[in-house]
């Protein structure tokens, strides 16, 4: 699969206090960087994890990582990569003009969960690499009636890479 060199994936471990999201998004906003996707989950009462994706050339990426690292409400910054980490996005869609053949194809080809909502309407629930989500969207663009996507969740495997080395 093609890799966009400027596509960035980072995971932040942050304090679970009000205003943290605004503090982080303002770092991006004042530099004119658009955040493509953002997902947040509580890790424990005191900390949360934020996955962010955005586009930025290499020479500017280094500085923004350092700026994030020094922010008192950010406890850890990890950089993710499509090649070596688990990067997933949840995608839910309702497709029209589907029969059981289409449903079977989607289940096998995309490893998605499918539920027939009526004779021709199919609910698809997919958890996949965001590039696979895009492929699905493209393949079924004529049939997609509505869809939602969660934004990208990044699970870094740096720890295991180090163990292996």
């Amino acid at each position, binding site marked *: 699969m093609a890799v966009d060199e400027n596509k960035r994936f980072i995971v932040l471990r942050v*304090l679970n*206090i009000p*205003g943290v999201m*605004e503090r982080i998004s303002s770092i991006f906003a004042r530099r004119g960087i658009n955040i493509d996707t953002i997902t947040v989950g509580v890790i424990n009462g005191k900390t949360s994890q934020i996955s962010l994706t955005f586009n930025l050339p290499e020479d500017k990426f280094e*500085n923004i990582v350092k700026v994030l690292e*020094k922010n*008192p*409400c950010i406890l850890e910054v990890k950089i993710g990569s499509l090649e070596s980490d688990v990067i997933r996005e949840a995608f839910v869609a309702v497709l029209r003009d589907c029969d059981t053949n289409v449903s079977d194809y989607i289940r096998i080809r995309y490893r998605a969960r499918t539920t027939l909502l009526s004779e021709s309407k199919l609910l698809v629930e997919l958890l996949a690499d965001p590039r696979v989500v895009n492929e699905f969207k493209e393949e079924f663009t004529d049939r997609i009636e509505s869809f939602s996507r969660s934004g990208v969740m990044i699970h870094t495997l740096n720890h295991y890479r180090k163990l292996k080395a």
Partner: protein
Amino acid sequence: MVSGAKLLVDKLRENGVKTIFGIPGGAVLPFFDELYKAEDIEFILARHEQGAAHMADGYARATGRAGVVVTTSGPGATNLATGVANAYLDSSPVISISGQVSTSLIGYDAFQEANIFSMMIGLTKMNFLPRNLDELSSAIENAFKIALSGRPGPVHIDIPRDVQLMEGEPMNNIFSYSYNPPVPSDEEIFLVSRILADAERPVILAGGGVIMSGASSELIAFAELLNAPVVTTLMGKGSIPEDHPLSLGCVGMHGKLGAIKAVQESDVLLAVGTRFSDRTTGKLSGFAPRAKKIHVDIDRSEIGKLLKPDIGIVGDAKHVLSRIYSNLLKMVQKGKAGRWGERLKQLKKESEFLYDYDAVPVKPSTVVKVLNDYVAPGDFVTTEVGQCQMYASLHFLAKRPRQFISSGGLGTMGFGLPAAIGVKAAFREQRVFDIAGDGSFFMTCNQLPVSVDYELPIIVVVLNNYFLGMVRQWQELFYGRRYMAVDLKGKADIARVSEGFGAKGFKATRISELKEVLQIAIKQNETTVIDVVVEREDNVFPMIPPAATLDEVIVRR
């Protein structure tokens, strides 16, 4: 059981706060009621919150301790913005506190409610909006740690009125900020030492970080060992005594000629505690073009942000300089390193100015030159912003760190006068001078009564050219002398305005008069404003035109 307001006062006291600047108001009254009982904490009532923040900033810069400002919600807090932003750009540890409407009213457009939390995000190192006693306790504890550790900076706490009134037993369990100073490896230090030992024309560029880390004596020993000239940024002015044989003064848009040339001729540039502001470097691609560049800074994100150094070292200036120094001791003989030789004396000579003590109207540069004789090494000089600031930078010789206090990054006109009051509040035995222009003076002269009321006498020397001088200079040089919106006419009488505020006001039109008045001001030890009428269209030179390299320096009209 303790109330939020009492907790705040107790925590401020625990953190060594003896002076608070600010203005009260509805949303912060519970705190002031508690402060009423605290006899060991002095409150200095400002006349506008921006000035109060500058006072806290001046206090912080002069002492190295946190300066504290307290205001009410809404307009009280929005007025803080300029002062807090000023502290942020110059890495000054200001703790700013504002009252906020009660938590149940936040977001409902209550009287004097503004979204201060969001406003402060971009202007502070960190900010808090505590909603209960645990969060309040943790916010104050962490605020001081965050403001003072690593690269210092302002922290804001927005405290709702009901949180000030809440009673309970707070627990410090929200989070605890910890900071571990970065320590460079032996290899990095050795590598840099080797490069410096082998340098023929090394130059040290000292920024505000040298002053904040208390690394002045290390810097001087270092420079003397290497026989390397030291140039400074505006924020680094005073990191080496400017009458030291190796000091060449400030470099930058209005730097000294010798300093500018030294940087351009250097083969190794060691920059310590500086962020390579455009006002320091001119066009970056032409800055020290032949030099191998070593950048030392405690803030990791400054390394490579603008200038891409050959070697970047993340660390505290004092720590790094002393470690390189120990290495260098084994590599070079004191004073024998490098090949600056006679060139150094030439560079110093090139920076010399000719002062005309008899000219009428007087030259602003001569006023600042004369002022040097009245400023003792223990005294302080603050400045406003614009031409007056650059005359001060060029002609005032700072003798020690923290003596020269100026708004560098934000360039806030009106900073110097309230900052001088803040400095004086910390050092009552020392004299504090503010070198001002008439444009800046009128931005915060409403704070003069604070100096009078609290017996914090300062001496304001206004270089009065009845112009917004720096804007006029740019319009002259780069906009075909089309003067637009810069003429201040001069109908307002600065001396009489000052008298009206309860200060002593004088007007001087000759250097001889200025000297007489300065002597009176020093003897009387009262808040004094000296309106010095200077040549209207004098320009600050040298000047690097905007977006030009240091080599394109202009020295005359």
